[in-house]
């Protein structure tokens, strides 16, 4: 850097200010005695609630740059690190005793590590530049990555390069090539920038020990904790998919907690192996995103029919089809609640914040084991990667997870395996290897009492009713819905679910309206209808075309006001505040 083509000065040009959708605020480079130069961009500017001077993204081209700039960042910030330069020599020069990429120094940040120097040189090879000339293009390679991650147009930057380097056609074309190559790399590698954009004000932070945590980390710990609380090993079976893969990666580090990970050949094999593990007495867990969940649907029905426990985590992303893999959305609610053949109800839960993935994983497993059913836990791409401050919970506050005992009786093993607890309707968890309890299970309809195959018409009615009643039993178990804050009756309540928690919380606080945030979507909490009836209006903001709205309408006979946003971006507080005020104006 520091060349005639220093990006710092380049970006400081007035040209950028004219980009209609481009960074508003550009600051002077931060110089250091180490010769580190940097440029800062405040992407998006003021409206986003992350006020403060700390940059949210750092592109570190070498260890020295990282060393100098890291203290300026908040925890959870995004680091794009050029790994090519992290050699022993450069690390020593920067004063690092060990490689910060591997020693845990960066655990509180989102790190995107890429061989930028190398990738950049490859991308401009065709221009026959000298190594140093080619190397200068890496700024634009990195900028291309950033533009992908933050959904910005390439065109204005490309035009700027054309004007700026009009007299140097080779360098002009090489830089444009690098810009596009970086952008393509971001797309191909499915890089995303799920920065925590809404933070709780510090005044809301209860006393205690805190750490930074992403949804994937919290989910991994929650899954391991569920294993500990039930004294079972966990087999996590999944197939890589954006944005679900970070959970698979995290769990590989928790092996000593009795957690195994199995990378299956496809999404179907992943859920099937998890079902096999549950059948074998471990807690079977699978995780995916919307397209993968679709592939798992038939196997979910098998787990329902066989009455086996299973935890299915869905990190939602934009759809339909491949859709927007790196962008967040809440559009799999219908799929989770309804998306199977037959009358096949499955409990559906959702996590509201990154940290809450921990307790929801425990809650979901508790329901799965108590009621002997698969459970779907909805999260999304935003939660997967977003780091937030998390109050470390007291593990002793979580009750042990009980399983249903095998009934001690003279009945046949087949009948004993399908003897259900009268309250939870969950059956005993009998696994191969247990002496004297050999029995057969499967996806064919079975007799409600004996557990043998049955095509009897009246029995199928009873079994269908039983599967529905099991969901009612879950409703009785989960307890009442609470109001997050605000009056318990009034003109307006905002009802949300999932990762919209942060912006809804802030917007309702600012406007003084009540906020209800659902963790249980199927069944809905038993008191929810009564709770909502105390308000004149119910506003439902969600990152889909109105799925919770329809669910509430169908189940509770309320008529909510939908507020959809499907841009792949989280809600802004301002958008919600405006909507709340508009709804109130209409009412008055």
């Amino acid at each position, binding site marked *: 850097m520091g060349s005639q083509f220093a990006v710092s000065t380049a970006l400081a040009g007035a040209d950028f200010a004219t980009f209609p959708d481009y960074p508003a605020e550009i600051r002077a480079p931060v110089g250091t005695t180490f010769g580190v130069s940097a440029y800062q961009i405040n992407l998006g500017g003021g409206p986003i609630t992350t006020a403060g001077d700390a940059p949210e993204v750092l592109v570190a081209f070498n260890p020295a740059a990282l060393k100098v700039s890291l203290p300026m960042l908040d925890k959870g910030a995004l680091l794009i690190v050029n790994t090519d330069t992290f050699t022993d020599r450069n690390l020593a020069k920067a004063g690092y005793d060990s490689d910060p990429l591997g020693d845990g120094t960066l*655990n509180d940040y989102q790190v995107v590590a890429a061989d930028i120097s190398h990738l950049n040189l490859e991308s401009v090879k065709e221009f026959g530049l000298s190594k140093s000339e080619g190397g200068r293009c890496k700024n634009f390679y990195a900028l291309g990555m950033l533009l992908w991650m933050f959904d910005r147009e390439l065109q204005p930057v490309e035009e700027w390069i054309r004007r700026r380097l009009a007299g140097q056609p080779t360098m002009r074309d090489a830089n444009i090539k690098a810009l596009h190559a970086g952008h393509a790399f971001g797309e191909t590698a499915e890089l995303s920038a799920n920065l925590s954009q809404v933070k709780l004000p510090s005044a809301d932070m209860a006393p205690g020990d805190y750490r930074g945590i992403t949804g994937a980390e919290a989910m991994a710990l929650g899954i391991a904790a569920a294993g500990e609380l039930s004294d079972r090993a966990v087999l996590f079976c999944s197939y890589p998919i954006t944005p679900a893969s970070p959970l698979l990666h995290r769990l590989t580090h928790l092996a000593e907690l009795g957690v195994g990970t199995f990378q299956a050949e496809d999404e179907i094999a992943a859920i099937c192996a998890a079902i096999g593990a549950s059948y074998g007495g471990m807690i079977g867990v699978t995780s995916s995103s919307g397209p993968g969940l679709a592939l798992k649907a038939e196997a979910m029905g098998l787990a329902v029919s066989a009455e086996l426990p299973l935890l299915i985590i869905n990190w939602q992303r934009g759809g339909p089809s491949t859709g927007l893999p790196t962008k967040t959305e809440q559009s799999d609610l219908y799929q989770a609640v309804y998306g199977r053949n037959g009358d096949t109800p499955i409990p559906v839960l959702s996590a509201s914040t990154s940290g809450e993935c921990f307790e929801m994983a425990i809650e979901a497993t508790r329901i799965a084991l108590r009621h002997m059913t698969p459970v779907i836990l909805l999260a999304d791409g935003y939660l997967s990667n977003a780091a937030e401050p998390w109050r470390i919970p007291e593990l002793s506050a979580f009750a042990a997870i009980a399983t249903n005992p095998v009934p001690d009786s003279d009945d046949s093993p087949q009948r004993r395996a399908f003897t259900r607890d009268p309250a939870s309707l969950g059956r005993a968890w009998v696994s191969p290897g247990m002496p004297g309890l050999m029995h057969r299970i499967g996806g064919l309809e079975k007799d409600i009492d004996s557990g043998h195959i049955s095509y009897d018409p009246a029995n199928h009615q009873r079994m269908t009713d039983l599967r529905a009643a099991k969901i009612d039993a879950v409703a009785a178990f989960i307890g009442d819905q609470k109001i997050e804050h605000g009056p318990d009756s009034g003109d307006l309540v905002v009802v949300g679910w999932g990762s919209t928690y942060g912006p809804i919380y802030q917007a309702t606080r600012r406007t003084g309206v009540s906020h209800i945030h659902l963790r249980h979507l199927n069944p809905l909490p038993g008191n929810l209808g009564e709770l909502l009836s105390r308000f004149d209006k119910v506003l439902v903001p969600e990152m889909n075309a109105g799925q919770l709205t329809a669910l509430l309408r169908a189940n509770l006979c309320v008529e909510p006001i939908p507020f959809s946003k499907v841009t792949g971006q989280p809600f802004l507080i301002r958008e919600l505040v405006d909507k709340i005020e508009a709804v109130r104006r209409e009412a008055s």
Partner: protein
Amino acid sequence: MNDKLTARDFATSQEVRWCPGCGDYAILKAVQKALADAGADPANTAFVSGIGCASRFPYYVETYGFHTIHGRAPAIATGLKLANPGLDVWVVTGDGDSLSIGGNHLMHALRRNVGLKMLLFNNEIYGLTKGQYSPTSRVGTTSPSSPKGSVDTPISPGQFAMGCGTHFFARGVDTDKVGMSDVLQQAHAFTGTAFIEIFQNCIVYNEDVFAGFTERKTAANTQLHVKHGEPMLFGENKGKGMRFNQDTWSLEVIDATEAPDEVLIHDEGNAIVARLLIDLNMPVAMGVIYRQPAISFEDTFYAHHPSRMQRTRRVRDFIKGPSSWKVTKD
């Protein structure tokens, strides 16, 4: 288990519901007998199946049993084997279940070498869905979905398995008690995926499709039963043998009495010869055609797991992460 169990002890109370005369009956009897002969513990044995006629099998074996969904039995069995590697896990499947809808899972179970005994009932037809052609049906098979004859080139289960890197491939005929007993015992003793193709006669939709080599009267001349370390002999009085033709790189039938030294000795670890045996039309090779022992997937999985799936630390050891801080009341 003081009393030795008999084949009858491995039968359930459920009425067997295959078509009268179906080859599955003979296979069921052979498996029940093999379990008894091997001294299998019913409580430590599980049968996992997919969908199809063959997949009804678990209901009729007095062990643990799981009748799952179409094509996915190998994946479910893999999860089960990882959860409890000490179990004796059998997968029962058909040509449609394992080579059409479930081809992917079969492929990966084989290449991983999961400790499963896989019985592929090959009848070259879809039975349960009423007689459509299957991925192993010969070209020209007329069926409700191919009234003018099927046009697809069939897949060879044996060549598929070899291509997937199987470590064990054997063959048997449903009604051949002796041959079936032998391959089932060998499969039972194998560590890793033991894959057996069983020629099974569907008397309703594809009757006698294998009659050309399964007829008892002519079987001596039409089947080559291979045994490791023994010459490849067949025919009346073992008068014929197989020779490796070095010009054509193929197996050919010779008069074994004239040139006994030229008869090939079966080496079950030789993948090239195994592939030639699999492709033989006449005679058709039976028995353990290929066996190359290797560590099983579950053994590797546990060996590489830092705590062998045990809980040796607590969540509290991990929950604080790399750094934490305290928030106190002002």
